[in-house]
């Protein structure tokens, strides 16, 4: 293939596009829709992945949470809700007994009303934790400090706020040193937790941490289910810690050998698993939708390219008469369908970029999504469009290339 043939083919294709802009846009609509699906899907999943990574980094990869609840949603909901709650005593016993973990501590959780003066916030998650929690990534503070061992043991009325709830209660001032009420009781704010994973923003960034002693006094331990938080210290020790915790917990819960675990050891990884379900359904729907639109798109392009071959029959005759070989003619029509498809893809990417910006602007909850289409998805979309163009142009291009010059010249 000579360079002049190729550049001529592309020039002809662009010219054909200019000659029939409306027809071209309509013909390429299927490709446009297909590429839009691929791009939007990619955009959504990339946003999901990056916020998941964020969340895992925030919680720490070496964290285990022994809980009645299965965070990944893989154990049946009925089975999980029938489990007996993990009492404070059991959670504490496990924390005391574990040898392999770097930190082990019980944690209690509830929701309560918060207020500052007349400003109120309902149903805010409140966690009671020991002072050690300040040593885990989830307890890292940006402003102020975490509570001390002394404050922890005595159950001092001090609170460390999640960044979002801090902003909500104190929009214009530094919350550290201020007084708040949790379930009607006075607390002094001593710190604000670092901004966190956006995936859990509703929960983690609004969480209020108070000393566990104070939590028990305020909310009681009754039927509440507690969590044992374990920090393995390194990824290599994660398996050992998990195994030890499992055996200890089975003993604490007095399970017979044939009984299944009535608790789940959650990991930050289990978040990945719960995301995986979402991922799969997004992929499944997205892929089948885009495959369908590409199919429709390719049929549209095949059709329009055949029309173009018929319309240009005499031109093909002229070009053959002056020495165009089959290859050059085929290239001309392949270029036309590839240019059409690529133009459709570019149109789609412009449309999607607009849509992405609009979503970011109008829906604050979509904050975890990136404000652009990931470059690798743009590359894939263009590549797929290019391939679709070649597939769609193949049959018409072959027909054009095989036309007999005399018959083509005679065609009116």
């Amino acid at each position, binding site marked *: 293939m000579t360079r*002049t043939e190729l550049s*001529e083919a592309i020039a002809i294709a662009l*010219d054909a596009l200019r000659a029939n802009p409306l027809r071209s846009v309509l013909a390429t609509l299927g490709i446009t829709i297909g590429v839009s699906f691929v791009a939007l899907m990619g955009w959504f999943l990339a946003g999901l992945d990056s916020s998941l990574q964020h969340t895992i980094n925030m919680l720490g990869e070496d964290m285990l949470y022994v809980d009645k609840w299965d965070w990944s949603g893989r154990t049946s909901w009925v089975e999980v809700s029938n489990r007996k709650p993990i009492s404070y005593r059991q959670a504490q016993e496990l924390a005391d007994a574990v040898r392999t973990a770097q930190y082990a501590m019980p944690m209690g959780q509830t929701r309560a009303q918060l207020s500052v003066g007349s400003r109120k916030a309902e149903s805010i998650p409140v966690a009671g934790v020991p002072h050690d929690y300040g040593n885990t990534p989830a307890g890292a503070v940006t402003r102020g400090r975490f509570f001390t061992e002394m404050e922890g043991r005595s159950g001092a009325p001090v609170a460390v706020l999640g960044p979002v709830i801090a902003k909500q209660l104190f929009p214009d001032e530094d919350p550290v040193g201020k007084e708040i009420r949790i379930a009607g009781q006075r607390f002094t704010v001593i710190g604000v937790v670092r901004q966190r994973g956006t995936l859990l923003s509703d929960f983690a960034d609004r969480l209020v941490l108070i000393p566990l002693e104070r939590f028990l006094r305020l909310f009681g331990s009754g039927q509440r289910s507690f969590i044992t938080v374990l920090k393995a210290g390194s990824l290599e020790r994660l398996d050992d810690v998990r195994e030890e915790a499992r055996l200890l917990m089975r003993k604490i819960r007095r399970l017979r050998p044939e009984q299944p675990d009535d608790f789940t050891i959650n990991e930050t990884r289990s978040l990945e698993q719960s995301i995986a379900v979402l991922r799969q359904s997004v992929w499944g729907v997205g892929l089948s939708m885009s495959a369908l639109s590409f199919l429709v798109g390719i049929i549209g392009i095949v059709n329009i390219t055949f029309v173009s071959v018929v319309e240009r029959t005499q031109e093909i005759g002229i*070009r053959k008469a002056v*020495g*165009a*070989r089959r*290859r050059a003619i085929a290239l001309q029509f392949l270029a036309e369908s590839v240019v059409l498809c690529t133009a459709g893809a570019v149109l789609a990417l412009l449309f999607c970029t607009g849509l992405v910006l609009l979503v970011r602007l109008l829906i604050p909850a979509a904050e975890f999504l990136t404000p652009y289409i990931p470059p690798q998805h743009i590359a894939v979309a263009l590549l797929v469009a290019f391939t679709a163009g070649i597939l769609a142009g193949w049959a018409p291009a072959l027909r054009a290339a095989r036309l*007999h010059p005399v018959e083509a010249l005679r065609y009116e």
Partner: protein
Amino acid sequence: MQPLIVLENVTKVYRTEGEEVHALRGISLVVQPNEYVAIMGPSGSGKSTLMHILGCLDTPTSGRYLLNGRDVSQLDDDELAYIRNRQIGFVFQTFNLLPRATALKNVELPLIYAGVPAAERRERARRALEAVGLGDRLHHRPNELSGGQRQRVAIARALVVNPALILADEPTGNLDSASGAEIMRLFTQLWQLGNTIILVTHEDYIARYARRIIRIRDGRIESDTPNPEPVHLEQLPSMP
């Protein structure tokens, strides 16, 4: 001197709906370089088929065709395209220009398929258009040109590759007589410059310009004679 064209007993049979049409029934012919030949005949005589075979647009059913000493009667599509590109310049009755392309772009067309780089292409196309008197119409599209001017663009396109043979099929058929005379004057000048020209026509006054007249009837050569009194350039109206 090696003949430019040697046809040996060339036949062409078309099959349409089970019916066989014998367009050419054994044509033998020799054309030397720098001849000026008119092929004449009524419609249906086979003269168009002969032109297609001479122009390598089609291949004979049997017989041999030697162009510049090379047998081209059995070549495939692409090989024929190559020969057309390098050796043959066509001028058609209906001009056959690309409607959306400028005169310059139309004349560049054969050079594109010869793989000539863009700058050289433009320069050669410009010179060919100047040679046919259209130096001031380079960027006009066919619909902005008169019939005579369009045909001159087509002649420039035929000339631009320096072909061994210029084949013109009823070149004045769609022109008024004044423009037709201009075009014939141009062909005659090109012949005087050393080109080999074959005209296919059914009009006596066009054939009078040629130096040799071959008459075809029913797929056979009826007569092949020198033109006893060819038109000389002095007898023509001068070009505007």
